[in-house]
């Protein structure tokens, strides 16, 4: 009997507690930098596309919402001909970001992407590409990888030794 009265009193005291509701459109919630929201494609510090169209993101995507086609430019750099993410399927799991070998695909703390028409949720490459390096400011894949492209021969990457001359290794 006493506990019933105490319950009523304790609930009454909640009148003076702070409300936990976040009044969303007026009051934006804090989202951590690593929040998994809208997906973007980042660029190198010097402005080139980071994506090398390796298909790892499309392969790992559990809902198959990423579609792309690899191609190669005249300098020997691979890049996606088109890159399409269907956000009406995306579950924002972040596996694509994990799988990406070049830090090209990244998830951002933005979730306000509602649309009235479902086709508008299909983002093309020009919708995904941003003009910056995203979370990894200094990283440039083509500067550290061993692949030869125009303007950077074998052994000219950062922290890469010159290729061994196999003729000098002969016994």
């Amino acid at each position, binding site marked *: 009997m006493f506990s019933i009265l105490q319950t*009523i009193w304790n609930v009454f005291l909640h009148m003076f507690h702070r409300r*936990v509701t976040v009044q969303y459109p007026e009051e934006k919630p804090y989202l951590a930098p690593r929040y998994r929201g809208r997906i973007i494609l980042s660029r190198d510090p010097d402005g080139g596309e980071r994506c090398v169209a390796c298909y790892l993101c499309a392969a790992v995507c559990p809902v198959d919402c990423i579609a792309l086609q690899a191609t190669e430019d005249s300098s020997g750099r691979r890049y996606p001909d088109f890159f399409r993410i269907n956000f009406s399927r995306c579950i924002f799991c972040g596996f694509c970001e994990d799988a990406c070998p070049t830090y090209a695909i990244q998830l951002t703390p933005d979730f306000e992407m509602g649309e009235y028409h479902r086709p508008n949720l299909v983002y093309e490459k020009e919708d995904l590409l941003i003009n910056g390096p995203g979370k990894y400011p200094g990283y440039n894949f083509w500067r550290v990888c061993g692949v030869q492209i125009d303007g950077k021969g074998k052994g000219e990457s950062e922290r890469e030794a010159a290729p061994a001359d196999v003729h000098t290794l002969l016994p």
Partner: protein
Amino acid sequence: MMVSPYPIATIFGVLIVALTIAAGLIWLERRLLALWQDRYGPNRVGPFGLMQVMADMIKIFFKEDWIPPFADKTVFVLAPAIIMVTVLMSFAVLPIAPGIVVADLNVGLLFILAMSSLGVYSVVLAGWSSDNKYSLLGALRAAAQMLSYEVFMGLSLMGVVLLAGSFNLVQIIDAQRGLWFVIPQFLGFVLFLIAGVAETRRLPFDLPEAESELVAGYHSEYSGMKFGMFFVGEYLGVTLISALISIFFFGGWLGPILPPIVWFLLKTFFFVCFFILLRASLPRPRFDQLMAWGWKVMLPLAIVNLLVTGAIVLATA
């Protein structure tokens, strides 16, 4: 005989105010529940979310008025009307302020008890005519609960009647000029409060509709405005019981400085809020606990209260 426009104005005034309050209570309840659960509740539509009620009302009026093919149609349609009519009839004898009462009945208290007994029919018939096992279970529970709690609801008020020496609500209020009956009749007040919650089937005692067990109990099959009538009937019942508590135990319109009608509304409002607080804090008892509580605790207490009050009245007379 000429009928002066004054009683007509009172009738329509009470009717419109009662229905408006019942609709407003939906908003009040949602806001207060939210407040006690550290939320906001409806606060988007209009100032403080008040227009939410309007939006919901417009929506419910345009809903399909569907009757299940297996239902007993006549009774099914009639049942929600009964609850509205009985509760609104009880409002007729409520004295709101000196001179503002629709029908100043000499047996006002008995009339209210009779009307609340008739309200059981609404629930039982609704459950029966729905031809649905959950509805029927809800109706059975409602019948048992309301009949049991009515017994000591009446008995708990007899102490007030003994002290006031009248069944007339206006005279009961006048008898409280010196001292509110809540002090000599505190036990009666507590008993009436609990019985009132059970009679309106509000939350600690909402076993007839127990949504976690019986879908929605006796109104499972109702939709649209017919459900709306049950809903409004429930809130009218809450208003009625709150008004009755303030009339029987807290001196109705009596109070200093403020005009009588304001005092009456303030007291009623206080108890409405208390009803909502009960809903926010208490869980539902088991049905056998409910019956045992009613027959083994409340009824003996009500009888003891009546006997002791009667003895005291007799001794001092």
